[in-house]
């Protein structure tokens, strides 16, 4: 195994090659299009039993008892397991990226003395099929004495509120105190303008189209646990099982087949997954649990729900001289990972692409008796949601166009490398370029004229921008990925990676990287992932890191294998390696095509005829690489949206949506655009349609897709793309991407809506901006106007 570290020197930018930079059509597609994918519910394991959870219907209460007698008596029921059966004897566990010391909610598979949110799993029914399991679940009587729910973050922290986790002694899940800064105080003191606003972002749910699920099988003879899981991180799944069960990792095999989306919800095994694993071990039979959509909305993990107060100090010309941010996060009862707070990342990224000399960021995370947070596409993104909306608020306050205000404050190429007030070093970013490209693509100036003309007709048109910097997360345990590239005896190539691609197209893009760097046909590369028994360790797919870390490993391994193949050919041909070149799965002396030896021939020599090889010729045609990436690599983009708001219905129509994206050298532009699009429509969904709502008693009101509204093809705008390609300093010039679409779209859209409503004196600082919310604001304005006479 060799390691490659990113060097400080700029690597030569790879020009679009045979495969790199090409929109190669996907290897994944034939099986997925023909219904031959293998998702976890498609797995058939002989003797498998089916699980269903009994869940709390009360947000907060003492669990006095669980009567499962009638349930156990139902024909076809094998077991009804409670906390007494599953919780004891477990060792502590934690998520690898957080470490064992990170603050976290108590981890218990099933509720024991009390329930802490509607959906809290109380008992696990295991039966011959899911239909019977649900029948039995209905027969389980949980005796719950209700307690006061804790729903509001403010109320949760005052002395009178009951404790979500009594054993923690507080509803404070975590705190990042805002650092004192005399420079910042001075900036505010001296400022020409100080503008303050509080932004509220509501509760979202990830809603991957496939819910969570797993099949767990314990073999007592070999003491081996096998889990087929709908996961974004099979090794993390394995690690957490190993910790909690006290098993060696190598005796746990986690297999990930096709997975129907995750967006962060499947990054870590959660309580239900562990409960099912424990049940399988206890019963000595394989157990399958496939979450249903109602459970997924109740308990699969929620996201966002936070507010941020931002204060900005500027000089006369609108240059930012200081910014203060205070965030409050509602992390629910059982968040993952750690305590569910994202402020640790948010506070680093908050300056975004602007020059902000002095900055403070404080955050408070609060437990409530609601479903806990999970990671969701750009989990820290409130920093961009608040910052980009705040730029528009400041612009409006100062009477400067929001585009112009951004131009005055955005970091320019000339200032790179730029170190932010939070210590982030931006080296190869291009926010100013993307700002100009997006503005040009959407026709910003022409739109302003169109907007004015429309206003005269009583139509409300608006335009909004959002700029952001997106970190590819490769710090700590996320900092490496592995790849093995092997020339098989037939001369074709196996690519074995620790990735967990579940829509990111890595089966195609990583093969492109290998084919390009090895010098073989793309069709000759077979990609394998997902089975911890034979793939290298991986930190999971997510965090916008694959093009940096995973591709880095694939590239390094491919380059390493090419060198071995060349060395072998050199030995065979008795020339210097430097005289050889590789193309089309063959090695030839430069300028002498007739000398070409195909890979297949070299493989046959190495595997079968090694006795004929000269001494010192390499015998191993397999290279494993663990690539180490710098902690962050930065991509950036600018989103621009134009909207029309109907003044009667409050409906927002998106007229145009433009993204100018710089994610470095793109491996596959089609894949990049697809990732942007998915994120953008999730952000549009969040602002306009999606809202996870609890009532005053902590009962979820939006627990089916009839009420939690996802955008459809009829609501999705056409997304137009511009690309800027600023190579990183990493080999191949790669940067990561993937989360950004969901990060910048909410503020771009919010800004456009507010731009449309501004002439009416309306500003919405809360999401969602549903038709009803917009009309409520319009009606208040109309009444005020009527009252004024």
């Amino acid at each position, binding site marked *: 195994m060799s390691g490659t570290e990113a060097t400080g020197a700029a690597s030569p930018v790879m020009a679009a090659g045979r495969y790199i930079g090409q929109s190669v059509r996907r290897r994944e597609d034939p099986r997925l299009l023909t219904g031959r994918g293998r998702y976890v519910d498609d797995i058939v394991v002989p003797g498998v039993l089916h699980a269903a959870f009994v869940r709390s219907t009360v947000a907060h209460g003492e669990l006095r008892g669980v009567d499962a007698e009638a349930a156990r008596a139902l024909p076809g029921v094998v077991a009804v397991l409670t906390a007494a059966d599953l919780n004891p004897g477990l060792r502590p566990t934690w998520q690898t990226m957080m470490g064992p010391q990170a603050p976290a909610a108590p981890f218990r598979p099933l509720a024991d003395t009390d329930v802490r949110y509607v959906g809290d799993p109380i008992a696990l029914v295991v039966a011959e099929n*899911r*239909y019977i399991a*649900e*029948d039995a679940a*209905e027969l389980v009587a949980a005796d719950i004495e209700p307690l006061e729910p804790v729903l509001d973050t403010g109320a949760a922290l005052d002395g009178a509120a009951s404790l979500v986790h009594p054993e923690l002694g507080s509803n404070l899940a975590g705190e990042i105190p805002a650092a004192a800064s005399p420079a910042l105080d001075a900036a505010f003191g001296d400022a020409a303008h100080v503008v303050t606003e509080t932004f509220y972002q509501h509760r979202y749910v990830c809603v991957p189209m496939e819910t969570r699920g797993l099949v767990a099988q314990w073999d007592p003879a070999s003491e081996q646990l096998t889990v087929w899981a709908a996961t974004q991180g099979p090794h993390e799944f394995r690690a957490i099982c190993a910790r909690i069960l006290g098993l060696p990792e190598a005796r746990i095999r986690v297999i990930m087949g096709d997975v129907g989306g995750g967006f962060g919800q499947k990054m870590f095994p959660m309580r239900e997954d562990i409960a099912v694993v424990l049940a399988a071990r206890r019963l000595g039979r394989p157990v399958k649990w496939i979450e*249903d*959509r*109602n459970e997924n909305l109740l308990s699969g993990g929620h996201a966002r729900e936070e507010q941020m107060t931002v204060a900005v100090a500027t000089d006369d010309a609108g240059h930012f001289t200081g910014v203060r941010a205070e965030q409050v996060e509602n992390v629910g009862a059982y968040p993952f990972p750690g305590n569910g707070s994202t402020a640790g990342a948010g506070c680093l990224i908050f300056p975004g692409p602007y020059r902000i000399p002095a900055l403070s960021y404080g955050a408070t995370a609060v437990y409530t008796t609601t479903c806990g947070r999970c990671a969701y596409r750009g989990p820290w993104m409130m920093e961009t949601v608040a910052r980009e909306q705040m730029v528009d608020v400041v612009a409006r306050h100062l009477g400067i166009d929001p585009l112009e205000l951004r131009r005055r404050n955005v970091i320019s190429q000339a200032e790179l490398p730029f170190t932010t007030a939070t210590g982030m070093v931006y080296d190869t970013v291009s926010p100013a370029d993307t700002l100009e490209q997006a503005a040009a693509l959407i026709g910003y100036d022409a739109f302003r004229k169109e907007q004015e003309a429309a206003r005269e007709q009583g139509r409300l048109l608006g335009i909004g921008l959002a700029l952001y910097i997106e970190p590819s997360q490769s710090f700590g345990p996320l900092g490496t990925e592995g790849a093995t590239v092997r020339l098989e005896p037939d001369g074709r190539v196996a690519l074995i990676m620790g990735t967990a691609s579940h829509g990111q197209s890595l089966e195609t893009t990583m093969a492109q990287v290998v084919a390009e760097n090895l010098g073989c046909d793309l069709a000759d590369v077979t990609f394998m992932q997902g089975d911890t028994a034979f793939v290298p360790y991986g930190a999971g797919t997510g965090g916008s890191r694959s093009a940096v870390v995973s591709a880095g490993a694939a590239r390094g391994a491919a380059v390493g294998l090419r060198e071995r193949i060349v060395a072998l050919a050199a030995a065979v041909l008795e020339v210097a390696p430097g005289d050889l070149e590789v193309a089309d799965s063959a090695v030839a002396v430069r300028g002498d095509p007739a000398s070409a030896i195909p890979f297949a021939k070299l493989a046959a020599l190495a595997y079968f005829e090694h006795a004929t090889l000269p001494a010192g010729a390499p015998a191993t045609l397999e290279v494993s690489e663990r690539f180490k990436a710098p902690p962050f690599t930065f991509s950036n983009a600018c989103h621009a949206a134009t909207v029309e708001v109907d003044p*009667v*219905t*409050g*409906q927002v129509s998106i007229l145009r949506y433009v993204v100018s994206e710089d994610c470095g050298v793109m491996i596959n532009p089609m894949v990049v655009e697809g990732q942007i699009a998915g994120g953008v429509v999730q952000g549009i969904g969040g602002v306009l*349609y999606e*809202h996870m*709502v609890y009532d005053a008693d902590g009962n979820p*009101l*939006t627990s*089916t897709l*009839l*009420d939690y*509204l996802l*955008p*459809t093809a*009829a*609501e999705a705008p056409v997304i137009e793309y511009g690309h800027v390609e600023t190579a990183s300093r990493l080999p191949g010039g790669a940067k990561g991407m993937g989360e950004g679409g969901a990060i910048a779209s909410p503020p771009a859209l919010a800004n456009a809506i507010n731009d449309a409503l501004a002439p009416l004196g309306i500003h919405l600082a809360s999401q969602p901006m*549903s*038709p*009803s919310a917009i*009309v*409520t604001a319009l*009606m208040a304005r109309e009444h005020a106007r009527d009252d004024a006479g």
Partner: protein
Amino acid sequence: MKPAPFSYHRPETLAEAVGTLGAFGDEARVLAGGQSLVPVMALRLGRFGHIVDLGQVGALRYVRDDGGSIAVGAMTTHAAAGRDPLAAGSVPLLARAIPFIGHFQIRNRGTVGGSCAHADPAAEIPAVAVTLDAEMEAAGPERTRRIPAAEFFASTYTTTLEPDEVLTSLRFPVWQGRTGFAIREFARRSGDFALAGALCAVTLDADCRIERAAIGLLGLGAVPVRAFQAEQAITGTAPGDLDMTEIGLLAVADTDPPDDVHATSAYRRRVGAAMAAQALAAAVAEAQAGTGITQEAAHG
């Protein structure tokens, strides 16, 4: 989300179906297209010991001229009713309402009778029935009876059908003369139940004054309602003299729509008023033109 167990009945005749319902009373439920009932069963919000599937009762699938009315069999799917030329020609309001019902996959299974029996306050078929003063025909063990649409819908998800009755057909009166029809509704997404909607049928007399008008509202109460005050206000008037916005406001004046996660009561009334104004204007325009107009969706 698997349904609770039930005994399944698949009668081949209406008489069998009625007999089965009579035998099991409140424990039995009719299964028509299943697009509304099966989700209720999957979520276990309702459980029924006996399900009576009308899918094989072919006698309930038809669209026919009933002399002055068009009779649509209760098990006619929305898709079939929407394609039917007789329905389109004689009851344009029905044909125009159908594309708003869910999605085409739902319309392939959902039935006009099932929609009425389910009685969602924002459903289109009930609203068409109420607007046009349709008659529902119901078959019970002793007799068949006709129920005016206004008396059929009692409350949210509640009709005046007896537990042992099967809704067999809807009879829509055919409007004669210089007529115009329109439906305007507002939903958050394509295919969703509307937050508010209005249906309008008008006839103009020889002087182009409004001879007859029907304005129906959906989503603004527990059942679809008629805006009688507004109808009376415009009858006999010349359309050009009307302030459509005012008429729209009058149409919703007596309504008390619900507040829920999707919209406030005030929102629904505001949008309902706008939909009524738009529907009336479009229906009038069609009647004036004497030809069909292209129906536009109120959203999207």
